């Protein structure tokens, strides 16, 4: 009798979890559809653009990864693609037990007029602060406040210096929390996963970052200049 009860409870818990997961996913898709509608954007549960093919470091992390809930459209003539990205990392302990940890992000990709060397801009974290204290510096700028708040790395330090002028520096300090990557003709802005209706935050971050790219970048890095 007791065994049967345990089996029934087990089936109910597993079944409940499946049903809950199904409705949670359905509700999230509905929220995405509503958000896309409010923005005047199109929506797809899957990735119609092969976004993982873009050359960003974020899309190389983990042992497996995926893109879902993609919305796309135009703002002020700028092509915008916003989406959810996740990756997982497998690990195992000494007893051979394996576990899988997922990380989720809300992202936006916008195009640039010039081909950019790989460059990343992110808030300083615990490890990068420790690195700084030990003398391992990323690209340093004139403002010590900025150097302490943000870490900048680039395959071409001159590009990074031209990119982060006083105006861009101030904007980044006023909008801490977002991560940016530039590579080829693309800019990626991302942060921790948000609710669908809050995706506008990362879209605005990408759009404003794009607006703050100095004109000198266009003049110096456009092919043939």
């Amino acid at each position, binding site marked *: 009798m007791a065994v049967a009860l345990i089996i029934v409870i087990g089936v109910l818990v597993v079944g409940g979890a499946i049903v809950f997961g199904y409705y949670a996913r359905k509700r999230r898709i509905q929220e995405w559809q509503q958000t896309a509608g409010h923005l005047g954007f199109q929506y797809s549960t899957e990735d119609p*653009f*092969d*976004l993982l*093919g*873009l050359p960003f470091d974020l899309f190389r992390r983990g042992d497996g990864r995926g893109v879902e809930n993609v919305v796309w459209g*135009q703002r002020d*003539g*700028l*092509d915008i*693609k916003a989406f959810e990205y996740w990756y997982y990392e497998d690990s195992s302990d000494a007893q051979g037990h394996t576990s899988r940890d997922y990380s989720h992000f809300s992202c936006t*990709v*916008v*195009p*640039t*007029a010039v081909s950019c060397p790989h460059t990343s801009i992110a808030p300083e974290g615990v490890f990068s602060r420790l690195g700084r204290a030990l*003398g391992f*510096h990323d*690209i*340093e*700028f*004139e403002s010590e406040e900025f150097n302490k708040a943000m870490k900048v790395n680039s395959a071409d*330090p*001159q590009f990074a*210096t*031209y990119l982060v*002028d006083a105006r861009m520096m101030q904007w980044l300090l006023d909008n801490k929390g977002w991560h940016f990557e530039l590579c080829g*003709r*693309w800019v990626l802005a991302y942060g921790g996963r948000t609710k669908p209706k809050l995706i506008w935050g990362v879209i605005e971050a990408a759009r404003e970052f*794009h*607006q*703050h*790219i*100095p*004109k*000198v*970048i*266009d*003049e*110096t890095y456009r092919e043939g200049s």
Partner: protein
Amino acid sequence: MIGVYIAAGVVGLLLIAFAVSYDRFVRQRNLIKNSWANVDTELRRRYDLIPNLVEAVKGYAAHEKEIFEKLAQARADAIAQAGPPEAQARAENGVVSGLRQLLAVTENYPQLKASQNFLSLQNELTNTEDRIQAARRFYNNNVRAYNTRVQSFPSNAIAGMFHFQEQQYFEIDEAVARAGAPQVDLAPDTGTP
């Protein structure tokens, strides 16, 4: 015997660290030279622009002779300057002062300000100022990173041994007020990934 191996290992590690540090100083010094060459290129763009700008203003304000002569002299002094960045900066500030006076004069001539040729030259000057400032920032960032190593322990020991001396920063004013600068228009491509 183990003590000898440990001592040899420590000496070997110290020699490697020494070589790496020395090589980094050489790379940084070369980077400073290259970034200074960039600054120089951008400054020359501005020198080339000045005669055209003066000619455009002369067409409307020929009697402002003193300002033209002062700017021409400052430009000649800056071109002739082959000294360190500090001396170059002093010479450039003379050019900047002359350019500011020239641009201030144009305020009195609405026809000149509306001239397509003048507007195009002013736009070119703004772009050149942006390029000078960007090149200056890169040069100064490289100097800062290098000077920090020249001053910090333990790299200061190698700097002292091989005469890696502190480099000068390059600080100049901007001739064109940023408020009057054209808006940034980085037209995006609309392709899809």
